């Protein structure tokens, strides 16, 4: 039997983790972030380094792997990892404060620097990482539907989703604009200074274009009955993978354990 279009647009995921309802996944994201902050307050070793958040990052990697999205996640994480690395190096080698731990010639690693380095870079890695997991295992369509289900105003939902889509569109537009400006003598190939000069002539048309475009798009939406009152039909519906309950309980349990554990350490 040939599938109807309505059937074709539904999303069926075999992987129970990737197929979790977006609301459940988002709960995981929130709880994970809470745990990250709690863990980062645990001071270990003589100088009180927040080492606990380093192995905690493995949870993100495990989640990505079990969700079957390892490749996609690694790709997205590369950029985050790069930023985290830069921050780590800067904080370690450049920021002064507290006891000097190691010295190679004129390079010093200070207590405060190292603490901040680990704290900042791994905070970023953890939080960005869990969001990467969320966005790589959930399509925009699913997020939109979940937002609607949760009762968020349909206008806000639209703004959110179209912004996500716009990222791709804008990067395409920026290429067109850069080409147009190159043809007028704006050099875009070359060193950093050259590229910096090309920034403004590219940015203004991009932003203006986006603004004009969004004004016209409002008319388009109106022409599709966007502001109709009354219940809307939804052709696309979210499926639960069945593991929602398990996931929620696990996530809450882990969080509670970590919080209690932390409180206990503090008191003792």
């Amino acid at each position: 039997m040939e599938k109807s279009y309505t059937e074709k647009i539904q999303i069926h995921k075999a992987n129970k983790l990737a197929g979790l309802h977006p609301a459940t996944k988002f709960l995981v994201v929130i709880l994970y972030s809470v745990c990250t902050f709690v863990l980062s307050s645990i001071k270990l070793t003589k100088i009180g380094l927040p080492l606990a958040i380093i192995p905690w990052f493995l949870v993100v990697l495990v989640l990505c792997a079990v969700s079957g999205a390892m490749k996609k996640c690694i790709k997205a994480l590369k950029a985050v990892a790069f930023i985290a690395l830069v921050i780590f190096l800067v904080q370690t080698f450049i920021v002064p404060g507290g006891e000097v731990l190691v010295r190679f010639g004129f390079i010093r690693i200070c207590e405060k620097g190292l603490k901040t380095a680990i704290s900042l870079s791994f905070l970023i890695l953890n939080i960005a990482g869990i969001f990467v997991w969320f966005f790589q295992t959930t399509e925009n369509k699913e997020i939109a539907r979940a937002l609607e289900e949760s009762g968020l105003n349909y206008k806000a939902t639209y703004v959110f989703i179209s912004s996500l889509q716009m990222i791709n569109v804008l990067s395409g537009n920026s290429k067109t604009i850069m080409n147009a400006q190159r043809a007028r003598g704006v050099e875009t190939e070359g060193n950093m200074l050259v590229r910096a000069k090309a920034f403004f002539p590219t940015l203004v048309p991009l932003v203006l274009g986006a603004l004009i475009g969004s004004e016209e798009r409002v008319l388009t939406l109106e022409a599709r009955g966007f502001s109709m009152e009354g219940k809307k039909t939804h052709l696309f519906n979210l499926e639960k993978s069945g593991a929602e309950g398990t996931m929620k309980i696990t996530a809450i349990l882990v969080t509670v354990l970590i919080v209690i554990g932390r409180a206990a350490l503090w008191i003792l």
Partner: protein
Amino acid sequence: MDIVMECKDVTYSYPLTKKPAIKNLNLKLERGKFYGVIGENGSGKTTLCALLRGFAPSFYKGELQGEVLLEGKNINEYGGEIAAKIGFVFQNPFTQISGIKDTVFEEVSYGLENFGVPAEKIEKRVIDVMKMTNIETLAEKSPFELSGGQMQRVALASVIVLEPDILIIDEPTSQLDPEGTESVFSIIETLKEKKKTIILVEHKIDLIAEYADEVLVFKEGTMIAFRRKQEILSDLSFLEQGVTLPQVAILGRKLQERGLGLSAIPVTEKQAVEVIAEALQERNK
């Protein structure tokens, strides 16, 4: 006369402008007729579309004097459901995709979803409209990956599916190539056959000559003429008002000036061939 839309003494200015974009407009539009709107850029054609669709002043703000009526009622008394009464398509194909749907099928369904049409009914209606606008082969493609002409056909489909009786179409083919233009116009032809009320703004005067029943001419915010197509498009004095006439009409007039007795000034290609052949036969007898 079944008047479906009316403008009574309408004068409208966009916000922060001194000059009105449209002045003293009095207009009665009959159900089922095809109206062509011509005039220079900036003469008020797009403003007319915005007024008739209720976007001015509700969306654009600005000052409105007079009334715009749809089926006897003031247009600002209609809410979002006006989308099922008046379809609206404009020049830029790209800004007419909603931006939140992954496939053409969903894009065309979007309006029906907003109207709360039951899910079982949506699919059939969408398929019918996709067939009519010749986009069924594109149903599973992403709207972002379409050509300009394809996007315009999707935009048309997305409003036609709401089954409005009135369609306002503002320069749909400006940015399209000849093939895209033709594909859009064949849809417009189908709409005409279904006896929809159509208001079409176009610079491609030869296409207006082909399809319109009556023509409205705008200049600097004022409607300077509103008559049957034949009368307007064969009247060379309009050339001085910033509009062009069909090539065949200008040809016809010049032949008349040279002494060739034409029974009428042609406005379409077919008419031209008939009328000139007839006149030549007469002359060469």
